[in-house]
């Protein structure tokens, strides 16, 4: 069943003109040599031709164009979005909020009484005595490396898929 589906998918890509040059010549070879592929190809080809020719397009009423034009007569083309969005206004709003944030920060910092010594200036833990080997042991490092490798492979796969699409377009 899977092989059958795969055959159909490849044949549809060939018929739609989506296969690359190599794939195209490979499928042409299969169609020429294999009776099963040839039969399926002819079947899909006549189905494709029927779809091209036989799908009917419906028509609205005879008055449709006139109705639309009458309706349009009451409207005007709206100005392009880019033309009425004034960048100066956007920058102005951004500037206002930035000034507000910076102002609050300056005010908050100004309220701190720096002359008062901290109640407890010792840290709740002894930094030199922390045993990092409990966290950064081999298992954690390995898991970290595996996750990174998987992410790296996913990114590479995505990049290659994009490249493949690009090459296919160039081939076509």
């Amino acid at each position: 069943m899977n092989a059958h589906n795969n055959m159909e998918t490849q044949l549809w890509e060939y018929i739609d003109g989506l296969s690359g040059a190599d794939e195209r010549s490979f499928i042409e070879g299969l169609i020429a040599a294999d009776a099963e592929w040839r039969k399926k190809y002819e079947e899909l080809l006549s189905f494709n031709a029927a779809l091209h020719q036989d799908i009917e397009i419906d028509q609205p009423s005879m008055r449709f164009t006139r109705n639309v034009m009458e309706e349009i007569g009451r409207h005007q083309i709206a100005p392009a979005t880019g033309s009425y969005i004034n960048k100066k206004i956007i920058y102005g709003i951004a500037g206002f909020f930035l000034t507000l944030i910076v102002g609050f920060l300056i005010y908050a910092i100004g309220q701190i009484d720096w002359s008062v010594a901290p109640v407890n200036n010792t840290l709740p833990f002894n930094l030199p005595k922390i045993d990092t080997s409990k966290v950064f042991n081999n298992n954690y490092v390995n898991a970290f490396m595996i996750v990174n490798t998987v992410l790296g492979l996913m990114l590479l796969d995505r990049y290659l898929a994009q490249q493949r699409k690009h090459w296919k377009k160039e081939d076509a």
Partner: protein
Amino acid sequence: MQTGLTDNDIIQLVRKGDQQAFAQLVTKYQNYVFTIILRYLPSREDAEEVAQDVFVKAYRSLGDFRGESKFSTWLYTITTTTCITFLRKNKLDVQSLDNEKVFAQADNMDGGMRANQVEQKSRVAMVNQAIKMLSPEDAQVITLFYKGEQSLDEIAQVLGQETNAVKVRLHRARQRLKEKMEKYFAQEVKDLAHY
């Protein structure tokens, strides 16, 4: 009426104030827009209302059309979103006959004459009847691909999906269509094989 103008030429004319030039675009695309809407809505009256709304929206938004895609792709995108908005606003279910029970009901409604009529149906009627049994999305993808002169990339833009997803959808839609035709129009499919 000026002939031989491209869509972009007509759009330039309309933008310069020649509102009547827009009628050429309406005439050219009204059937395609109407057909796509009918894939979603059962009523021709509703479909015509939505189609009119699509052209008015397109006219009002012409200022935003930058010509980076074909006018038809842009128009079909408006068509799809307007259809979905209409369905949501009116709380209508998407018209889907992708279910044998519904088809059986429709079959019974037509009474006994239907069997004879089906036998007499031409290949054209068979294909179109089978398309009506598909889900609106499948029917739309097939219509855009075969009649709307849209590439897979353009259909992806219309539907707001990835090109690969559209490729898979088109493949499955054709498979489902073929299955419907084989199930309900076995004799015609045999004839088609000799076509």
